[in-house]
């Protein structure tokens, strides 16, 4: 049976993201009291895995690294149809950059019996880097294809996928096992169902801490991160804004006239 691992990040709800601050001491992002949700782009990775499972037999494991509250996100994935959930949660994992995150995920996946493929989202909505998928692949010594928009042939020893490039795509053949990052156009993620939530009652979430992974504290979290945030500078805008007042109609007329007189509209 095909064994698929999907890496999911619990990210702060975008609607409340303005409450995020940078910790002045550790320079890491603090995320106090902000509800965590599935990174929206990871839902496409999850959906790709679920669709492959619908076509053939597959076992899907979800792995998420995050605070204990990320357990809710793992639970939600189980309700969406994932078979097994693993939460990597340890204070030592905190403050990780992409490199340390990929390394920690690698150590976790390495503990699993046999893995045929790993799916990641294209990027995360909070850190906005796209590095975890390819870095994880490199640690796992697996090939990687980023920005996959379509799985043309999947399930066998060799898969064919279409991956986005500038103004087009490339058709890629991959020997398995492999890592894929999935774009947001690849599919429309399914929504939660009541029966899915009920089925998730019987599915377990395993939490692994630092000792479970058998790695040194120095190679994970903030300590294991090659990059650090060194300072924050405020950007001063060079523009002063004139708010155009009036009725809806007047505002439109005034704006058009202003743009014509500044020479940017004919």
């Amino acid at each position: 049976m095909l064994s698929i691992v999907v890496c999911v990040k619990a990210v702060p709800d975008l609607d409340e993201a303005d409450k995020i601050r940078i910790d002045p001491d550790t320079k890491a992002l603090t995320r106090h009291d902000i509800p965590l949700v599935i990174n929206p782009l990871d839902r496409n990775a999850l959906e790709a895995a679920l669709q492959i499972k619908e076509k053939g037999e597959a076992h899907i494991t979800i792995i998420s690294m995050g605070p204990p509250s990320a357990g809710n996100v793992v639970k939600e994935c189980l309700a969406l149809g994932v078979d097994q959930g693993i939460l990597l949660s340890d204070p030592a994992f905190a403050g990780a950059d992409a490199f340390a995150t990929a390394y920690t995920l690698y150590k976790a996946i390495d503990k699993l019996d046999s893995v045929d493929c790993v799916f990641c989202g294209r990027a995360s909505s909070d850190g906005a880097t796209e590095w975890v998928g390819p870095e994880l692949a490199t640690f796992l010594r697996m090939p990687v294809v980023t920005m996959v928009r379509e799985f043309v042939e999947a399930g066998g020893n060799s898969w064919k996928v279409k991956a986005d490039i500038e103004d087009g795509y490339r058709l890629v053949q991959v020997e398995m096992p492999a890592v894929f990052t999935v774009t947001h156009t690849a599919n429309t993620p399914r929504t939660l169902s009541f029966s899915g939530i009920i089925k998730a009652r019987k599915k377990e979430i395993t939490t692994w801490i630092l000792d479970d992974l058998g790695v040194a504290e120095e190679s994970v979290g903030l300590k294991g991160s090659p990059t650090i945030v060194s300072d924050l500078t405020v950007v001063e805008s060079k523009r002063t804004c004139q708010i155009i007042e009036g009725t809806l109609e007047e505002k439109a007329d005034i704006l058009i006239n202003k743009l014509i007189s500044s020479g940017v509209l004919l």
Partner: protein
Amino acid sequence: MIDFTFTDEQELFRKAAREFAETQIAPLVPKMEETGRDWDPAIKALCDAEMMAITIPEEYGGLGLGYVERLIALEEIARVSVATAMMMQVGALGTAPIIVFGSEEQKKKYLPGLASGKHFATVAVTEPSGGSDPKGCTTTYKKQGDSYFLNGRKCFITNSHIADVQVVMAVDEENPDSFSTFIVESGMKGFKPTHEEHKVGMRGCNTGEIELKDCEVPAENLLGGEGKGMRVAMTAIGDVGRGGMVGCSLGLQQACLEASIKFANERILYGKPINRLQAIQFKLAEIKIDLDAGRLLGYRAASIQDAGGRSSNEFAVAKYYTAEAAQRAAKMAADIHGGYGCMEEFVVTRYLRDSFVLGPSAGTSDIMKVIISRWVLS
């Protein structure tokens, strides 16, 4: 001590219901409003999303969940479409008597189809003479051989033209004190949905009349025993019907609050958003107070029901409070919108019309007071 928090799983149910309502139901609302019909896509969506299976036991293909979960789902669906929530709630109202009073054969025959959405249900009690005085029922039944023959007319029946499984109450042709309920299938000879109503609100929710003309119902479709009809109908209406209206009302209150906050943040008056004006702030506060109080009443009754108790009196209190509160909330939401509150492009005008229909559904506020006063005096 009382725990007022939802479980993690219940929060997940709410999230699922909200996602469903926002992605599947919300896009259907404009068409339903425009035509007052076009309920088929909403019904299909409800069935596909297992919304009709919530309280049906697992052994009959349902989800085996409780009234709290049902209330959560109704609240979230009513938040985007009270009309859809109404059809869903009455579907469950038609199903509940079969769950509670049905024989094993009846349960096996009807519940799996009602859970999967192959069938849809309703209850037909109200007649032209009124709904809150069931003893005034003039639809009659008469036994002949292995069949009952029903004659009469039912009106203001939600799902009248959709439901193919209808729990109908009738009175013995020869004994005016003997009421019985029957499971009538829409395909049975002599059954016919007739007039469709055009309501001021909850447009797109099917309400209409049915006609029973020598309608032949097999004897095995008698529900709960001959002469037990009043108990069957009142249990369903008391617990499920009122409970469902609480969900519809709470969802509408939440919608009113959200629309009001959004407008108050965006509408600029005297150079600043109107949310800075105390007159507006107090209205928002009042909607919120009503909503929180209504939720406590509603979920209290649902919890009693889930714990195995009877909750029709507690639901009467909650039904009264939330229906009244929804009407207040819709009025205040429209007031906050000022002139825009009179323009059909603004969703609060729909809320105002919908709130109007919440009142009489499953019993007016005055009838609730009759029930509550009977309760306190008993």
